[in-house]
């Protein structure tokens, strides 16, 4: 866990590190194309794209598991899955969608956009960023290989004790659960520390906290939640692992243990986790809605502070997951009240989005439609959530399909819709071409209809008394019709995903003939639209000087004497040309990949044979050493953007970089550039 980015080890005297080859294993990677460039990259944009691709692949895996569930339940007495297989499929569906889809997809947006939005050249610790990606991927693949070693986890995604003990779950599934989530947890922790430091420390001149875009703010809140929530689940997972592998007795009731310990530890993490899942989507729609309403976000400070309020209050509501666990009337009352209160800041956000749209010149692009869908669907999910806050009502709803309906309305109707909005919105920025709007609208409507057909009926099923997690049901309970409807809905969602994939392929082919989209296809407001699409590797030629919220929009528009807002500059006029070749960027590295590769080996070793763990441990330890003693900048083989001709001579130039790992290289030149940029910035 104690993986920290240490300063590079070249001498600040400017002499560089003579003859010091870290462990002498790897030559410094220099490739800029091909697989090697992706394995060794530390460019936050490439890493963001890989997060997105990985999350989409896992989305298909998790979606396939969902279709298995719905096929099994389509008719009474389903026979597709055995009870045991069904337990594994719904558990892996939950884990995959939460830890391997929504979290990394949010991370994809954060990684790609955050440095651009705050006007930075990269994140604070670029190699740690790469490590986060590979570690997440290693953990995700590790979790899914459990299918090959006797079956997936089968204790439900929240894995209540004592069901997860060896006695009740004798296969290796729960071992994979504990170790796999520990590995992805390491990835998320390092990523969260990295992005927290980036937001606090790497903002462009003038980018005060209250000038940051709402997406950046929500990402900030999420990273802080991750920093403080993940260690709690880490403890719980370690206890579970020690119990299963080394016969500790933390959840062994016969030894006097209290199974509620797991529930508390899990939900102290688990409830902040639901805000970790939804807040990035809130941030995305807070960017999308103003652009397509042609209005600034309504009540920016309220958006920010309601996000912060959600982040704080999210720590005080965890036991509402446990109203049926016997936690006592006082706790139930307290958590019931706090849960009702947390609906207030969420409601503020919903009202602000609607007020942003009110009176705006709306453009119903696919991105906007998905954003509006989030507002609508999340409101439904939020309202059913408030009904859980009422404890007597919750005891009726606990573990029924009503709960399943609720959290799919907030997670699919909220988070996934928001992430799709983000994909359609930022696709041209990332790939240089738009996704087809025609196919996009097919995707949207099929998705929306399929979603409501799938999860809407689950409210009814739940209130009729259908328990969640039952693998089949008999005829005559009144469950038949709505289950069939839900299954039809699930396959409609699957079709919409096929349309989305087709859209990606077709749009890419069409883009070859079409004109490039330019830096700013949507007439947007935040800094990432000021650079070319896709952005150059160093992001900004000159770090922008920020004078207000929506800086980029204000560079394009100004208020005339008649108090009418007019366009004063085209996107190309104010675009950052991205042509500089002398920006000093940190060099790529193999080490993050090596360290991440060692972790699943340790996992397999703990489950099967300790020799693998030794091998993995050596890879991790050696990797960390190689990493720590590898200079962040490789002066002999600089990245292609780097010629250092700004500096008097190469060595003293390198010296300037030494105290940090950051991409923000040419410090000496910066202040002067800043002043120039300030003069260039349009006034008014």
């Amino acid at each position, binding site marked *: 866990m104690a993986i920290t980015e240490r300063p590079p080890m070249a001498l600040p005297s400017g002499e560089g590190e003579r003859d010091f080859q870290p462990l002498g294993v790897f030559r410094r990677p220099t490739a800029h194309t091909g697989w090697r460039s992706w394995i060794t990259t530390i460019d936050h944009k490439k890493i963001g794209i890989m997060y997105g691709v990985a999350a989409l692949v896992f989305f298909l895996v998790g979606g396939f598991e969902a279709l298995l569930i719905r096929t099994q339940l389509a008719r009474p007495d389903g026979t597709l899955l055995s009870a045991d297989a069904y337990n594994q499929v719904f558990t892996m569906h939950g884990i995959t969608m939460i830890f391997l889809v929504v979290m990394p997809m949010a991370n994809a947006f954060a990684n790609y956009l955050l440095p651009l939005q705050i006007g930075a050249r990269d994140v604070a610790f670029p190699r740690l960023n790469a490590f986060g990606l590979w570690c997440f991927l290693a953990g995700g693949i590790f979790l899914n290989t459990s299918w090959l070693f006797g079956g997936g986890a089968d204790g439900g995604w929240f894995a209540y004790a004592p069901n997860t003990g060896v006695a009740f779950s004798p296969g290796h599934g729960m071992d994979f659960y504990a170790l796999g989530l520990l590995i992805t947890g390491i990835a998320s922790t390092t990523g969260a520390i990295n992005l927290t430091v980036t937001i606090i420390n790497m*903002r462009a001149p003038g980018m005060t906290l209250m000038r940051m875009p709402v997406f950046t703010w929500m990402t900030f809140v999420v990273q802080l939640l991750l920093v403080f929530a993940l260690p709690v689940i880490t403890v719980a997972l370690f206890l579970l692992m020690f119990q299963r592998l080394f016969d500790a007795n933390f959840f062994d009731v016969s030894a006097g243990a209290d199974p509620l310990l797991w529930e508390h530890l899990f939900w102290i993490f688990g409830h902040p986790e639901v805000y970790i899942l939804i807040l990035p989507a809130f941030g995305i729609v807070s960017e999308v809605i103003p652009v397509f309403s042609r209005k600034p976000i309504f009540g920016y400070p309220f958006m920010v502070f309601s996000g912060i309020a959600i982040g704080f209050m999210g720590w005080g509501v965890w036991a509402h997951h446990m109203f049926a666990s016997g936690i006592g009337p006082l706790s139930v009352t307290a958590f019931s009240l706090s849960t009702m209160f947390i609906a207030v800041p969420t409601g503020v956000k919903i009202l602000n989005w609607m007020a942003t749209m009110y009176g705006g010149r709306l453009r119903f692009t696919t991105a906007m439609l998905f954003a509006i869908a989030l507002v609508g669907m999340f409101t439904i999910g939020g309202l059913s959530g408030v009904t859980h806050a009422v404890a007597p009502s919750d005891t009726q709803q606990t573990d029924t399909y009503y709960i399943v309906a609720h959290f799919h309305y907030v997670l699919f109707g909220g988070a996934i819709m928001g992430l799709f909005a983000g994909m359609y919105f930022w696709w041209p920025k990332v790939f240089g071409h738009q996704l087809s709007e025609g196919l996009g609208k097919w995707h949207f409507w099929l998705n929306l209809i399929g979603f409501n057909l799938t999860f809407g009926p689950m409210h009814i099923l739940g209130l009729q008394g259908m328990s969640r997690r039952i693998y089949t049901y008999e005829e005559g309970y009144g469950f038949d019709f709505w289950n069939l409807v839900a299954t039809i809905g699930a396959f409609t969602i699957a079709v919409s995903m096929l349309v989305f994939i087709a859209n990606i392929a077709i749009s890419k082919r069409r883009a070859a003939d079409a004109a490039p989209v330019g830096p700013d296809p949507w007439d947007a407001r935040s800094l990432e639209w000021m650079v070319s699409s896709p952005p150059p590797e160093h992001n900004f030629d000159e770090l922008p000087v920020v004078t207000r919220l929506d800086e980029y929009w204000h560079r394009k528009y100004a208020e005339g004497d008649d108090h009418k807002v007019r366009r004063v500059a085209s996107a190309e006029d104010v675009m950052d040309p991205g042509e500089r070749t002398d920006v000093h960027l940190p060099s790529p590295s193999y080490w993050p990949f090596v360290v991440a590769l060692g972790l699943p080996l340790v996992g397999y070793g703990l489950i099967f044979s300790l020799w693998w763990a030794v091998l993995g441990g050596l890879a991790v330890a050696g990797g960390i050493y190689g990493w720590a003693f590898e200079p962040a900048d490789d002066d002999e083989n600089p990245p292609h953007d780097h010629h250092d001709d700004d500096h008097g001579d190469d060595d003293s130039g390198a010296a300037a970089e030494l105290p940090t790992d950051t991409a923000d290289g040419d410090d000496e030149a910066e202040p002067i550039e800043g002043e120039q940029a300030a003069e260039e910035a349009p006034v008014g």
Partner: protein
Amino acid sequence: MADATTETGAGEDQPGMGVAHAVGEAVHAEVGGEHHTSTGLSNEKLGMWVFLGSDCLLFGGLISTYLLYRHRSIGGPGPTDVFDIPFTSVSSFVLLMSSLTMVLALSALLRGDIRRNRIWLLTTALLGATFIAGQVFEFTAFKREGLGYTTNLFSSSFYTLTGFHGVHVTLGILMLLSLFVMSLRGNLPRERAETVEIIGLYWHFVDIVWIIIFTVVYLIP
């Protein structure tokens, strides 16, 4: 000495970290490489603070588990049966003294006294290793008295909590020894004092956690 206050005050609130920052800035200015960040705090130091904040919750979870379970065991020895308070007090004192030597190591380096810096780094690592040796001795003594890892709830939660702390100290020792080797190879000049400071932050954190563990686990019945 001024640098001792630097250590404890550095960081969380900006006004409080004046001395450390001033020193660091002077050093950086000297080599012409002052690095701009929005807060003036280096990324590495801020990253360490955030990591330590996160680690607080890790120990919080482990300590809570211990507190919940220490008197719930069915059978087997309990806390009062095995603890040897005088022995653990001595090893705790050794660990606390290592914080002092850590401060001395940083202070020596800030003065440019490479030799003393090496001596104090090595002393810190040795004191940490002494503490770990004490912990190993303690664990084997408990084991002889019949308190294995799986004996009862108390033993599982006790060994897990103190074991996690021991791993933290061990990682700290490895980092200190790495610094020592770096220094021997001439790679730890005065300009790199911040590296020592950051690893010092980690080291002091681990010590503070031990104060809490010693109080909660050993002293409070």
